């Protein structure tokens, strides 16, 4: 008799995070028919990680591999929820998993390299990565990982989030709680993926050249003028809503295709903050200097269309998915406002009903595009996973 992969996802809503975490374990065990060997969980940033951790480990087998992080809203089998503990439990016979973490406080590239160095040999087949982008530059973290594992090594995940205050996120690695750095789950065994990313944003400004960029993500000058001034000019009357409005107007790197201006959706950068003294924009990820940039915007319809496009792209020619991982930018939730659950209706309408799914609203997404993992922002990413070799 062949051994089956057991995969289940649950979402528990409870005012007591300790109970919510315990119930998540109960439910996973019930659904899997046995205790999970691997747990990946996303919990509302309203909950303290400590209560989640304690609730979880009061029921889990000590040998369980656990990683997780706080989120702005969780995506699970019951849709998009806030105030939940949403968990993925897996028993993958023949597979090995290792939870990894590196605290922040040093160069992001080095954190990426260190994370890979802590992986037991041999080389893993998949990495689920959950960084804290408030202390780590996700672009360089990814570059550090790719410098050791190669550009085509699959990395999936999202940046841990809070409830939109951009102040503090929490990461979970086994029984350890981190408030900076990154956690990851390395999976050893054959994995086949179909990933896609789409933002749905489009330019609302003329193309502007990044004439001065500092540290990769601090945009000092646009077209030779202070970036902040130029950005505010482009915002027009909405500049009075600064800084909150920046989440609705990310920056996109544009390329010109046969004379037309086209946005490379894989390179959308959220404006995380401003430096008034330097009149600079602080972006969530790196952008190349001299690149042509546009200010982007999206309507609710554009956002939903982006989600639909990404799912359809991932599903095309991939029939044997066992799990769907969804990492969706928190800025999209802001644009959709109270109707943010509509985006999940799109997911539900396109994905097969029986396919387990999990994810969260992130501060940045990590997903391959054309087989190379990139750091995205303001983007909906989906990865369909099959635990086995490609046929």
């Amino acid at each position, binding site marked *: 008799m062949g051994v089956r992969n057991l995969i289940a996802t649950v*979402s*528990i*809503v*409870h*005012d007591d995070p300790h109970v919510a975490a315990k*119930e998540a374990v*109960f*439910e996973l065990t*019930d659904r899997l028919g046995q205790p999970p060997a691997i747990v990946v969980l996303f919990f509302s940033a309203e909950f303290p990680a400590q209560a989640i951790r304690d609730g979880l480990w009061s029921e889990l087998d000590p040998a369980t591999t656990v990683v997780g992080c706080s989120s702005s809203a969780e995506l699970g089998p*019951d849709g998009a*929820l*806030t*105030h*939940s503990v949403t968990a993925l439990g897996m028993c993958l016979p023949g597979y090995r998993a290792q939870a990894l973490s590196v605290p922040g406080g040093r160069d992001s590239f080095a954190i990426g390299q260190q994370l890979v160095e802590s992986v037991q040999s041999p080389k893993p087949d998949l990495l689920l990565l959950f960084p804290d982008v408030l202390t780590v530059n996700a672009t360089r973290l990814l570059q550090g990982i790719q410098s050791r594992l190669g550009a085509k090594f699959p990395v999936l995940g999202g940046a841990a989030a809070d409830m939109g205050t951009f102040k503090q996120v929490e990461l979970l690695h086994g029984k350890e709680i981190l408030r900076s750095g990154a956690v990851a789950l390395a999976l050893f065994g054959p994995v086949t993926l179909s990933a896609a990313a789409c933002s749905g944003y489009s330019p609302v400004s003329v193309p502007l050249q990044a004439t001065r960029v500092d540290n990769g993500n601090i945009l000092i000058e646009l077209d030779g003028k202070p970036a902040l001034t130029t950005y505010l000019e482009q915002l027009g009357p909405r500049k009075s809503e600064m800084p909150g409005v920046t989440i609705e107007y990310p920056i996109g790197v544009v390329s010109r295709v046969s004379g037309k201006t086209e946005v490379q959706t894989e390179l959308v950068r959220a404006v995380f903050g401003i430096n008034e003294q330097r009149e600079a924009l602080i972006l969530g990820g790196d952008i190349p200097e001299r690149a042509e940039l546009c200010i982007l915007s999206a309507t609710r319809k554009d956002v939903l269309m982006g989600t639909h496009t990404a799912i359809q792209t991932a599903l095309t020619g991939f029939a044997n998915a066992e799990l769907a991982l969804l990492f969706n930018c928190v800025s999209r939730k802001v644009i959709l406002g*109270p109707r943010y659950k509509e985006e999940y209706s799109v997911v539900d309408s396109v994905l097969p009903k029986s396919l387990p799914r999990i994810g969260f609203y992130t501060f940045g997404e990590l997903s391959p595009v054309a087989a190379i993992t990139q750091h995205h922002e303001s983007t909906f990413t989906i990865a369909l996973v099959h635990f086995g070799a490609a046929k």
Partner: protein
Amino acid sequence: MRCESCCLEDPTSDALDLDAFCRKLSSCTECPLLRLDAPIPATVLIKQIERLKESARHNRQQQNRIRQLEHAQRELALEIQRSDERVAKLEQTQKATAQAADEQFQAQIAMLARQQAAILELATPIIQVWDGVLVLPLIGQLDDNRMQSLTENLLASLQQKQAQFAVLDLTGISDLNESSARHLYRVASAVRLLGAEALLCGMRAQVVRIVTSLGVDLGSLSVTRTLQDALRRCITKTRLTPST
């Protein structure tokens, strides 16, 4: 006495939900299996523990679903509150904007009225070209308002300046309707009633055609070809007047 098909042992009773199962069991008061001192077979016990576990799980899931719905309801209530606040703010803004727009509109109406009065004033200039000789150069369309204003101003000026002649110069009039033609006639009659003489000059062929086709009798009025002729006539008549 035991039933032939005991619901505690019968595999078909597994399909019953807990409520139906308990109702079925409640009729088994005579069953020796349910006596407190009776040993319960392990298979029966295990089956019933499984049933209870399943029931507990179902209950847990239902409670979770209820909490999810309650939370969604709270989120919705919060959103309605936020929405109400936004609507109230918008209403306030709209009220203020409407009030400001109304004030601006009223101010514009007042300004327009002032401008219209000024235009009317300018549209009916009365020039005293000589002692006792007033000239009214008329240009453009002669509507009822303008004719009314012209009449009032002219009669006032005639009285004020003790003028003997009022020259109505129609050189700048290319079109005339029946009402204006009759009004013009009435003006001339009013001038006569004040003891002055009205002279019409500069009538274009088109205007003459209109006047004649309308049957307005201008024959009782002094008509000259040009303003120069009219002024010459006034001056001549002024010289012949004994008092000058």
